[in-house]
């Protein structure tokens, strides 16, 4: 590929993804001269000694944002991952989103048990130490709150960051005991169709899990990104239901009741159900829809030069792996396929990238994901039409970022 073809600006300035690898070789980023002698003070004396538990650079300024208030107060609220400040597909444990219904319990694992009861041959109780002795599996999965991106269901677009708008999703490597090992040990009755999972927090979060899912890829997770779960993520143990709305991955897992019917708890009837326009509501709508967003450039950023930028973001689907992501720089008229990370995993965050030349003109950047089941991420209008106008769960509409002539990036509705 020669320089002319790199410079060939297709609609809106998006460059074909073949250009992705070649662009740097042409020195588009410019060059600079490194002086021979140390000129920074950190080069001339010993730094801080090694610590017990690492901290990020203070220059990185990483923090979660509190995602709105809650009538009950801060402990029943949520905080969102700063997606715009991260890259790759793993969310650091300190920045994983949180949503609690009555705060974070301080559980001593020596006084915590997991009990399997109900329609089983043998009711069984396990300690944390017991579970550590079981065979485990390790998988990367996304976790997304059912209410993620609820702010984009509001009538007027809010001028916020990608994380504030869409950061109730995170990606991690989860390690734990496959749930079916424990259910097999208890011996489930042939008529049992549901497993009711209960948490040990003050809210006693309780959700009904279909047996079909419970026997598939659900785990009792004990580790997140290699370390024991953080208290905010369910220490010492949580249910993890890949691809499903986050609320059913019950944290601080305390009991599992096996029975023929769902429990119809408050959090699967009054909450986490989706009202339709005719007044009926969908219940047990677990799988999260195919979704993506551009994390850079994104809301509250400013492009301070013309030229080449890497448009990058995340895509995921509760129905399988991501098969493709397309990017538009002209508000959805033309779409160009982005490069995907080579190992796009089922029900995991997938990173996409595409070079883009910004020529200083007003533009609208969007991404649109397709999963391996052929589901295509809908426009905001189509996504909103699925549910009652007041609905805010399971919103997966396309995120649009407007770049002004001055380079200011803002959330807009198209």
């Amino acid at each position, binding site marked *: 590929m020669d320089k002319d073809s790199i410079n060939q600006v297709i609609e809106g300035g998006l460059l074909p993804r073949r250009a992705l690898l070649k662009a740097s070789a042409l020195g588009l980023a410019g060059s600079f001269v490194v002086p021979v002698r140390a000129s920074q003070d950190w080069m001339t004396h010993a730094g801080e000694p090694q610590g017990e538990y690492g901290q990020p650079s203070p220059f990185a300024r990483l923090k979660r944002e509190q995602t709105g208030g809650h009538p009950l107060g801060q402990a029943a609220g949520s905080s969102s991952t700063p997606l715009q400040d991260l890259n790759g597909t793993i969310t650091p444990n300190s920045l994983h989103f949180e949503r609690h219904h009555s705060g974070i319990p301080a559980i001593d694992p020596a006084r915590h048990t997991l009990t399997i009861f109900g329609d089983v041959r043998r009711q069984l109780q396990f300690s944390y130490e017991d579970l550590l002795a079981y*065979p485990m599996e390790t998988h990367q999965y996304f976790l997304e709150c059912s209410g993620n991106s609820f702010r984009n269901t509001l009538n007027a677009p809010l001028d916020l960051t990608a994380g504030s708008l869409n950061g109730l999703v995170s990606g991690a490597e989860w390690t734990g005991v496959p749930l079916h090992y424990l259910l097999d040990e208890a011996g489930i009755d042939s008529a049992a169709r549901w497993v009711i999972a209960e948490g040990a927090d003050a809210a006693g979060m309780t959700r009904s899990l279909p047996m079909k899912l419970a026997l598939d890829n659900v785990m009792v997770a004990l580790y997140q990104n290699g370390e024991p779960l953080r208290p905010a993520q369910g220490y010492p143990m949580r249910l993890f239901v890949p691809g499903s709305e986050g609320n059913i991955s019950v944290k601080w897992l305390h009991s599992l009741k096996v029975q023929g019917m769902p429990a119809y708890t408050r959090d699967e009837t009054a909450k986490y159900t989706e009202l339709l326009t005719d007044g009926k509501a969908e*219940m047990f709508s677990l799988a999260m829809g195919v979704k993506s967003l551009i994390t850079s450039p994104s809301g509250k950023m400013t492009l301070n030069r013309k030229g080449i930028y890497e448009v990058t973001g995340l895509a995921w689907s509760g129905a399988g792996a991501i098969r493709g992501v397309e990017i538009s720089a002209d508000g959805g008229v033309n779409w160009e396929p982005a490069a995907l990370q080579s190992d796009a995993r089922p029900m995991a965050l997938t990173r996409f990238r595409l070079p883009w030349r910004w020529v200083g003109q007003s533009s609208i950047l969007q991404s649109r994901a397709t999963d391996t089941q052929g589901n295509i991420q809908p426009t905001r209008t189509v996504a909103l039409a699925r549910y009652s106008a007041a609905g805010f769960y399971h919103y997966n509409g396309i995120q649009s970022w407007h770049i002004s002539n001055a380079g200011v990036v803002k959330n807009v509705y198209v």
Partner: protein
Amino acid sequence: MFTYKTFVPRCATTGMVLLALSASAIAQPLLDGHNIKPELGRLVPDYQGTIVSGNGSGLPLGQASVEQGERVFNARCAACHGLDGKLAGNQLAGGIGTLATAQPVKTVGSYWPYAPTLYDYIARAMPYNEEKSLSVDEVYGATAYVLYLNGIVKRSEVVSDSTLADIQMPNRDGFIELQQ
């Protein structure tokens, strides 16, 4: 049970005896998991749990009248929910007939499909920050009073473990179950 020189082939079932390390075990190191389980669960035949289902299973013995419930509600619930259960943000009552409108009001009366769920939720999660502090009969009382505020039971009624599951909620048939 396991020693440093005793391995189980990863394809083995739990019923198989332990096998000494063999050449084939070396050829297939345990890199991608195995299913050999220690079976450490302890029998707890008497465990009851506290999960109450929509059909009333799991409800403990107990009862309360609406009038008894009014005293519980006013003392322990009304600060957040309002004396009439209609305080915005934590509204429990009203809204019947609004679900198909542009501004649906989801409350116990307008939205919840099962009355026993009310018992379950109050017993486990209310009052906020004083969770599990109500007695069984106080939970029945609060349940009865919230149903009364929604016009679902009369002021003279008593609600108990034997009657709660029979109470017809107005939106009982309002849901489409996607996993059935």
